[in-house]
């Protein structure tokens, strides 16, 4: 989230799209209801289903799954053409005025540089037109044909209301009504917040859907505003934290990236990562990349990391692919090129698409280690659970270890919520039986490995032998010790303008203290400040909100630097006065920035200095033009889901290459696992229910009671055609398999008119499996397609094709 849960109450318009906030985050949703209550905000729900959010929405529309870019692209065009955007904001705070390099074009659904064989783009031309000093050229009038604003305008001019109706299946009148409502937040004293979740993420064009939302917010001047922002509600309790700490194939901590195989030289790697400003006197905070990197390597390898050995740069594994995500790993497993896997609290059999393929992959492993509090499906993939998991154990040669872990109630530590708050929690009781904390298990494994490498030697033992391990109980690193390690320490006295600001051994105050010379150690730079000399900032409990704007700086700690609303400089006009006096967040006092939040900005930089608010980006501006950051192109374009209920992309009916996302990742092995709409006529989407959490709560009696059995949602019209009555059993098939479930026949799903055809949508909750206390069921992911988004490789759980038959 760019903003925070409580901040939602400051919005005038709440757009719930690509998510079902009431269903998935009921307590966070309280602040939507507060917005309605306090400031008479309107809630708009746009979803394939009339869902729990819609139940309390003021306006709603059915939309075909996977077509959000069309709706939002049309909105962008509508806002520009009807001149209903925040012009002052766009000029001052965005890249609208930047000129784009000659040669960049968009033609019949593809941007310049597409390589059909590799399904990749050569992004050379996707960049700004730079002047001699390497600064981007701008046309402040926004009139230049090559300026981002005009390119964007041209790009989305194709998204007419007629086109949106054809693609989304939303009647024009409804589209125009919603656009008009959304456009109201262009006024400086009106803000709109966008609440989205996996309903945008889990598409082959997921990342671009989210970008389109962000572009709308930039146009309307809602980024950085209280009650504004683009808010990823996020799924799991600490998924924000795991991502911050970089538990992804290509990441180090704090969103630093691991080197690619090509980056054979440390300097080159740093050069590439260090981002110099694209406009004069901008912050471009990534220019300090080396400070973050070196401090992290010092945290990892301590004294072994020296300037001479490039801080152990070459000890880091290097990538030959953009990502080695789970889909990639599973695909390798099925090819038999993998030996083992460690699943730490991750039920991949249930959670990943095409269960049959995941099952096949796991069956080809030599060993599988499960660390989990619960006896989940993945741990028992080898066990025959009748029709729900029909395998022959004698044919599966995988050795499976199941290690019992503690759960949240039995462990200390911090987790990061989607508002980026690091909140500390306290162990209440010991874990059951012989269960241990994850830390103890990881330590147990690592120390034994280390011992073996000391005794026997082995492949490249240096990193293992030199990994820092300064924990008072080496067998059980304490949460407090680890927190202090990622917060960072001074390894020598740190000076700033000649005076010592940190003594050797002291905890760092924030990442401003970091040095690139090895005199600081910091495990995760963005978390620097979480545990300082003042103590554990994550355990603070002051919930006071002195400015009554929903900012509680004394509660826990938020990264970066305890800022609660990112880009909050943009909540004030260029001259430093708030856009909306009733929504003042920070403002220029005359000598510094003051207000309710910690300024996300150089504290003493006067407005005249024209330092732009988005200090992480190279030009300090919000970006309509994504340059080479995303795979599909600088401007989001609508592409059909890999399994689409219509025969072509109405925007480019003639170009088969532009039917689906041209850079979506599909493994050769899976090409024939995709169905067509002739065979599987109905558009399906999967989702969570409020009564359940993924596959955990099927083990929780209380939740099993209030939502006991697997069901699928079918519209009354379709049910009528198929002769299905509510409560009857149905079988849902996709090209990859079938599930059986009870039919919930509802008015809340309606057939949509899409490009001249009637499209029925089927809703399939993901919950219920073959373990636990709820009714046993097939795993929903038996049905879903094995395809990755063009940037994040997120599976397309939200749009695929199925057929439905009555049992």
């Amino acid at each position: 989230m760019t903003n925070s849960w409580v901040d939602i109450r400051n919005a005038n318009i709440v757009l719930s799209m690509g998510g079902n906030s009431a269903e998935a985050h009921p307590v966070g949703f309280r602040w939507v209801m507060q917005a309605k209550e306090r400031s008479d905000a309107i809630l708009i729900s746009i979803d394939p289903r009339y869902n729990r959010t819609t139940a309390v929405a003021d306006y709603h529309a059915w939309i075909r799954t996977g077509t959000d870019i069309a709706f939002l692209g049309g909105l962008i065009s509508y806002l520009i053409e009807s001149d209903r955007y925040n012009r002052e904001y766009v000029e001052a705070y965005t890249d609208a005025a930047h000129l784009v390099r000659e040669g960049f074009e968009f033609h019949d659904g593809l941007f310049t540089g597409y390589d059909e064989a590799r399904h990749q783009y050569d992004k050379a031309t996707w960049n700004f037109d730079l002047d001699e000093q390497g600064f981007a050229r701008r046309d402040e009038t926004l009139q230049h044909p090559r300026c981002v604003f005009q390119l964007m305008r041209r790009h989305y001019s194709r998204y007419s209301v007629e086109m949106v109706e054809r693609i989304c299946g939303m009647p024009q009148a409804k589209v125009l009504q919603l656009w008009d409502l959304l456009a109201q937040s262009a006024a400086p004293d009106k803000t709109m917040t966008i609440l989205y979740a996996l309903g945008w993420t889990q598409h082959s064009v997921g990342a671009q859907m989210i970008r389109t939302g962000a572009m709308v917010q930039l146009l309307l001047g809602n980024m950085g505003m209280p009650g504004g922002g683009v808010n990823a509600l996020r799924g799991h309790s600490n998924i924000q934290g795991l991502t911050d700490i970089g538990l992804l194939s290509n990441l180090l901590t704090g969103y630093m990236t691991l080197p690619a195989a090509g980056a054979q030289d440390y300097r080159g790697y740093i050069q590439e990562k260090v981002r110099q400003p694209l406009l004069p006197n901008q912050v471009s905070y990534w220019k300090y990349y080396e400070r973050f990197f070196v401090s992290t390597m010092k945290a990892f390898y301590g004294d072994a990391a020296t300037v001479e050995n490039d801080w152990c740069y070459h000890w880091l594994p290097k990538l030959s692919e953009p990502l080695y995500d789970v889909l990639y790993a599973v695909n390798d497993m099925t090819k038999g090129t993998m030996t083992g896997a460690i699943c730490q609290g991750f039920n991949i059999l249930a959670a990943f698409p095409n269960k049959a393929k995941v099952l096949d992959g796991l069956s080809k492993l030599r060993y599988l280690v499960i660390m989990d509090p619960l006896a989940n499906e993945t741990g028992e993939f080898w066990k025959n659970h009748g029709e729900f998991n029909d395998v022959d154990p004698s044919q599966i040669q995988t050795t499976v270890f199941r290690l019992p872990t503690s759960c949240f109630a039995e462990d200390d530590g911090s987790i990061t919520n989607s508002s980026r708050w690091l909140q500390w929690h306290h162990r209440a009781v010991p874990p059951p039986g012989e269960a241990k904390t994850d830390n103890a298990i990881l330590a147990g494994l690592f120390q034994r490995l280390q011992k073996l490498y000391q005794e026997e030697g082995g492949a490249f033992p240096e990193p293992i032998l030199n990994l820092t391990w300064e924990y008072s109980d080496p067998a059980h690193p304490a949460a407090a010790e680890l927190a202090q390690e990622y917060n960072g320490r001074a390894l020598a006295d740190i000076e700033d303008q000649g005076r010592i600001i940190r003594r050797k051994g002291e905890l760092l105050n924030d990442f401003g203290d970091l040095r690139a010379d090895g005199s600081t150690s910091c495990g995760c730079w963005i978390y620097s400040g979480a545990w300082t000399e003042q103590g554990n900032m994550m355990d603070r409990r002051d919930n006071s909100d002195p400015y009554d704007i929903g900012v509680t700086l004394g509660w826990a700690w938020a990264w970066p630097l305890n800022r609660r609303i990112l880009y909050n400089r943009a909540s004030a006009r260029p001259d430093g006065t708030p856009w909306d006096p009733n929504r003042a967040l920070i403002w220029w006092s005359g000598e510094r920035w003051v207000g309710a939040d910690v300024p996300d900005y150089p504290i003493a930089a006067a407005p005249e200095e024209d330092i732009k608010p988005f200090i992480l980006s190279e030009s300090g501006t919000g970006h309509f033009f994504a340059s080479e950051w995303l795979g599909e192109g600088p401007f989001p374009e609508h592409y059909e889901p890999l399994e689409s209920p219509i025969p072509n992309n109405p925007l480019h009916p003639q170009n088969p290459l532009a039917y689906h996302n041209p850079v979506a990742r599909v493994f050769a092995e899976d090409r024939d696992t995709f169905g067509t709409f002739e065979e599987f006529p109905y558009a399906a989407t999967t989702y969570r229910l409020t009564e359940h959490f993924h596959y955990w709560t099927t083990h929780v009696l209380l939740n099993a009671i209030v939502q006991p059995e697997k069901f699928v949602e079918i519209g009354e019209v379709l049910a009528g055609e198929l002769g299905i009555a509510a409560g009857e059993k149905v079988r849902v098939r996709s090209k990859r398999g079938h599930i059986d479930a009870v039919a919930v026949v509802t008015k809340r799903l309606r057939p949509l008119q899409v490009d001249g055809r009637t499209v029925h949508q089927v809703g399939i909750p993901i919950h219920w499996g073959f373990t636990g206390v709820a009714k046993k069921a097939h795993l929903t992911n038996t049905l879903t397609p094995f395809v990755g988004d063009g940037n994040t490789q997120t599976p397309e759980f939200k749009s695929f094709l199925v057929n439905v038959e009555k049992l």
Partner: protein
Amino acid sequence: MRGDQINLQNIIARSATNEPSPQIRSGGVEQVTKLIDVSVCIGCKACQVACMEWNDLRDEVGECDGTYNAPQDLTPSSFEVMRFSEYENEEGDLEWLIRKDNCMHCAEPGCLKACPSPGAIVQYANGIVDFNSEHCIGCGYCVAGCPFDIPRISKKDNKAYKCTLCSDRVYHGLEPACVKSCPTGSIQFGTKEQMLDYGAHRVGKLKERGFDNAGIYDPAGVGGTHVVYVLQHADKPEIYSGLPKDPHISPTVELWKGVTKPLMSAVLGVSVLAGFFHYMTKGPKEEPEDDPDPDQAAAEREQDRHDEERRP
């Protein structure tokens, strides 16, 4: 602190008790009320789970009946359930009306009126109507008495159960479990006065948003309730999964537990008295003297012999 309210002095009504309970100290006691704002409810069932968790109830793991209702109805182990109904309004727009169904804690409780076991059902001065399972005899009269079809008789122990409005929490100055858990603030708790004020405010807001018939559901037929609803369509409560439009204690029950009780008892008493006094005034019908006539006597003896012979 509300805890002071619940003692014998503050039980203002007990089932099957003619004598009034001590009332004198109920004067200053707050009338507590739970308000359920249906227009804010997302049907997440947090209240349902919190209720089971707090009250140490675990219902059966049932089945999906083709709706979101689970469990489908109140049970001895489900003091409340959410009832979902898909309603198409006059404009043809779809509304998903979700109602939390539980005991309404009537000011004039039909269950209490019908209950034959003294103290099995009590009404506190704060308005809570509570079942005391210790005294419940499992006759099920409360089921017949309740205008809202709330009480359920357990097959395990043949006792009646229903929502207590968490009288144990309220006793200790806490809000009911469902109220505390409610994520969206659809369930509120306070004095009846506060809740009616808040309800009126909410109704105003709803009218601003075009719900002209929004209103508070606090049915007078049962003397008002200590659980009140805010409805978008207060003119049609029945569309909320059959919320009764004008609930009141059934006339049959009124008759049965009303006038008939004392009347019949009195008549029975009077009839006995009448007998007694008749006996005193008119005296008995004495055994008549035997007839001295010898033939007659002989005939009788003969008759007796006959009888004797015939006796097996």
